[in-house]
Structure formats: C-alpha cells, structure tokens
C-alpha cells in the first residue's frame, strides 16, 4: 500500500536517471511518506478530539453522575441504567413509546422516498425549459433553510390566532372557530412527515434528474421504434434507469432508520404533541439536558449507537445482496 513508489517519483527517476540513484530515491520516498502524514496529523487530532474522545464519555452510563460533582466522587452503578430500561415498568413504557414514534416517523419517511423519483420522472415530461427551471429553483429552496425558520413559517401559516389558513377558512365561511393545528396531537407523525417532504422533495429529486439525464437516448429511440407510448417509455426505460440510484438511497435510509434527527422535532414539539413527537434524539435531550439524568441518557445513547451500527451493517449486506457492492 504505502511502500509502492509514487507515480510522480517513478517518472522522475526515469527522466532524471542520472541524478537520482535508487538509494537516494528510497530515502526521498521514506521522508516523503511521513511528511505527508505529519501534514495531515493536526487535522486527524481534531477528528480524534471531537469524534473519538466523546466515546470515552460512555463511562458516564455506569455512574450515578450529577453535574458539577467530579466522576471520582460519583457512585459506580454498573449496568443499573441499562436494567432500569426493562425492569421498571413505567420506564419501559416510556422507551417503547419513544421507539414507536421513531419507527413510525422513519417508516413514513421511507415510504415517501418514492416521491422524489416520481417528481423527477414527471418533471422530465415537462417540455417548457423555463417552467422546469423555475420549478427546480423554487422547490429546492426549502432545503436550504433551518428548521427554526420552517417552524416560523408553520407558525405564520397555521397558528390559531390569525394564521393564514385559519383566516382563509374563516373568510370563506368554511369554519367558525380557528383550528389549532400546531398545538394538536392529531396526525403528528403525518404532519412531521409532510414537513419533511415539503423541505426535502425538490432537493431529493436532483439526483434522480441527474440519473434520468444520464440514460442513453438510444434506449428511448429503440423503445419508440418498438411502438412504446409515453407511459411505456417512462415505465420501461426511465424507471429501470433510476432504480439503482433509488436502491442506494433506500438502503442508506434503512441504515439511518433510528437516527431521524433532533432539530425538527425539537422546534415543533410542545406540551400537547410531545407524546407523539418525542423521537429518540429528542428523548435523550429531554432526559439528559432538561432532567439532568446524565447516566440514563448516556445509556440510551449507547444502545442507540449499537442498534444504529447493526442497521448499518445489515443495510450494507443487503446492498451487497441486491447490487453486488456495499454502501460503506
């Protein structure tokens, strides 16, 4: 691997055969390979500090840690935080509820992952270039704003006092009293999924548009000669053309099943919808940061990481099975 001569040096030796002896060349390469490493080292230290060192913090899961008290003066509790997960009936119900939310929202997310495919295929059927460009520009825009801003939009559009939707419906005489959509526990999973679709659909379609552009035009020509109409072309040429891309993203989606994020659920959560919006990441925050139960929150994080790694390797094997190559 690293003792292979670099291509550049090889070439140098050939051209300047006189100037470089093999020994000098070796000496140069020896110095060169450590020099390259030393230049990368400061950055690798950063990676260690921010990604690997926190793993050391997993020991907090085995102590009854309270903020401001040093770990040395803290009681070692072994696997207590892990066992409370299953031994305490109340605690177990909590965790099951959070897992149900996580899985429900992730599943709905996976179901909606066909939408960008449909979006891309249908957009390619639009003939007006200007319309197409406008659609692409405006639908990718929401991807680049923060969830806080999305919540700000949601607040303006759907809030109970003078939100756009309530005003519109009342003006039209469809409802008498304003609907409180944001502070409601009905369809929380669905509304979270819809916000995700609103934010990510246009952006998600870009990859598929690229994939469709890459399909050989002769395939369409051949199919047309065989008498295929517009829909047959879509179904028999375009759809198979984007399938490989779809599978890669689907498999990556499975790998990230348990990690559906924090920010969206944090900004949209309130006392009324908390029961159904609390996904794992938000739960860890509420237990750890809000209630200061560091040990238990860390234990949940550890279990989550383990499940997440298992899912990643499962997805990788699945990918090897389906596509013949892995995703990691």
């Amino acid at each position, binding site marked *: 691997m690293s003792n292979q001569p*670099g291509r550049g040096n090889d070439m140098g030796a050939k051209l300047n055969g006189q100037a470089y002896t093999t020994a000098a060349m070796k000496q140069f390469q020896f110095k060169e390979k450590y020099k390259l490493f030393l230049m*990368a080292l400061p950055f690798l230290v950063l990676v260690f500090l921010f990604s690997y060192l*926190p793993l050391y913090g997993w020991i*907090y899961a085995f102590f009854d840690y309270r903020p401001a008290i040093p770990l040395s003066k803290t009681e070692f509790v072994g696997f207590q935080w892990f066992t409370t997960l299953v031994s305490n009936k109340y605690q177990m119900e909590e965790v099951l509820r959070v897992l149900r939310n996580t899985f429900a929202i992730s599943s709905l997310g996976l179901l909606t992952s066909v939408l960008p495919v449909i979006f891309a295929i249908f957009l390619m059927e639009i003939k007006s270039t200007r319309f197409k460009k406008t659609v692409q520009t*405006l639908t990718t825009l*929401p991807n680049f704003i923060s969830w806080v801003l999305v919540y700000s939009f949601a607040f303006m559009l759907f809030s109970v006092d003078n939100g756009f939707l309530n005003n519109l419906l009342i003006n039209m005489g469809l409802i008498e009293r304003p609907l409180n959509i944001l502070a409601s526990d009905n369809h929380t999973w669905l509304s979270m999924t819809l916000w995700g679709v609103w934010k990510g659909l246009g952006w998600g379609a870009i990859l598929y548009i*690229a994939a469709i552009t890459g399909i050989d035009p002769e395939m369409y020509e051949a199919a047309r000669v065989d008498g295929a109409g517009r829909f047959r072309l879509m179904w028999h040429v375009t759809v198979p053309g984007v399938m490989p891309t779809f599978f890669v993203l689907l498999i990556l989606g499975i790998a990230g099943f348990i990690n559906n994020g924090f920010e969206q659920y944090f900004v949209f959560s309130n006392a009324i919808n908390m029961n159904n919006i609390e996904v794992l990441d938000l739960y860890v925050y509420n237990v750890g940061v809000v209630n200061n139960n560091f040990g238990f929150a860390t234990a949940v994080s550890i279990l989550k990481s383990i499940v997440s790694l298992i899912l990643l390797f499962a997805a990788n094997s699945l990918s090897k099975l389906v596509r013949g190559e892995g995703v990691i």
Partner: protein
Amino acid sequence: MRINNRITIFDIFNYTLFALFTSACFFPFYYLFINTISSNDLSSRGLVMFYPKEIHFDNYIQVFKIPGLGQATLVSFARTLIGTALTVAASGFLGYLFSKPTMWGRKFWYRFLIATMYFNAGLIPWFLIMLKLGFVNNFLAYIVPGIVSPFFIILVKTFVESTPISLQESAQLDGAGNMTIFWKIVMPLITPILATIAIFSAIGQWNSFQDTLFLVTDQNLFTLQFILYRYFNGATSLATLLQSGASDTNLANIQTATSIRTTVSMVVVIPILLVYPFFQRFFVKGIMIGAVKG
C-alpha cells in the same frame, strides 16, 4: 411527431401538479415578506394575505434596535465567514493529502476519518467532552469542531483523483514541494468542488442552531437562528419593550409580536435568498460528484 405536439390530459395534470407544489414551496417566503412590509396593525389582525397593504419598511429599521439582535447578526456572520473559510481550506488540503498513495498509513487514516460519519457518542458524552475541552460559551465551538468534515474530504479526494496526475508530476520535477503543488497546481484545478463545499458549509453555519442550544448560555454568543427560536416564547414581552421606547412612530407601524418574528425570520432568510440563485448550479454539480462515490 404528430402526437408530441398535442397537449394531453396528462400534460395539464402534470403542469398543474408542479405549479401547485412550487407555489406551496415558495408561498411561505412570500407570505412572510408581505407581512413584514405591510401595516403592522393590518398584519396582526391577519388582514394581509395575498398582497402587501400600506407598505412601509420600519420593521427592518426597528428590529435592529432590539437589544442583542445586532450582536447576534454579527456572530452569525462571523461564524459563517470564518467557519467556511477554514472548512474549505482544510477540506481542500486533506483531500489533496489523502489522494497521495505515498502517505504513511493512508488507508487506515482515511478509514479513521470516514468512520466518524457512521457513529456518534451521543449528546451527553459529547457535551461533557466539549465542556472539558473548554468549548462551552466559547466562540471557537462554532468553528473548530466543524473544520474537518469527512463528506467534504471524500468529495475533494474524488475530485483530485480525477484531475491529470501529470500536472503534479511535472511540477515535482521542477522542484516544487507539496505545499507549492497544492497551492499552485491543485487548488486552481479543484475550485469548482471547493466552491460547492464553500456554499454547503456556509449555509450549514448560517442555519446551525443545535450548537448554540447545547453549548452557549452567554447572550453575546447567541446566533440569529437561536434568537429567532427564543422569540417564539418571548416575543410578546419584546414588543412591549419596543413600544415603550417608540412613542413617536406611526401607530399602525408599532412593532407587534408577529412583526418582530416575521422580520427576524426575513433577516435570517434574506442572505440565503441572495446567494441561492448564483450557487444553485454548483449544488447540482456537487451532489452529482457525491453521487458518483455513492
């Protein structure tokens, strides 16, 4: 070609569908904007729905008089500029280094880096380490942890490997060291991918919210995003604060909770709207390079 020129029911359906979804994507931006420039009185009664009424720009002047907002804007801009510059430089340089097969332990260190995309220790362990390293209530917390980003480095490495190696070789023959080759030869070649990374990183920095939430309690370090979040809880009292000091302004334009929230939202979104059209083509290129790697 007869069939191709006919407008079918599918075409009508298709155009309508895209027109609807595109409007749904854009309308919130528009709706917020017309509410910030309309009479605050009409806006707070929900009477501004499809077009602005009694246009004025007082909100944009008044909003920067809110204590802390100017500072937050400064912090947001500072972290975006400094963070982006460092991330781009580090991604470019590391991507170049990792493209060299001669590097000692290259495969191992590359995996050491990429692995961090697939695990994280969890909130509490991460927070406690950040606390120990002194990154709580420290501006550097916005910058340093983000400098090395595995995904960006994959992008650069893939890109460098696609450039002709002979350019680097001939520079080497002329006696150029690694740094010279990187600055003079590689950097100019990889500017498209560095531009992509710059814009992704800048938007990430501008939108970042969690680091402030977890690591910062010092008001001087609050970002615009964080201030905006806080306004959903406390904007009403802020409005009274402003009203008491603004007796000379037109009654219709007095700040309300809604006007503060919408105006701050627009302040947060305007920089994105400004750079977005110029960089959109880079996004598309960037995500396609990423896709090649899969």
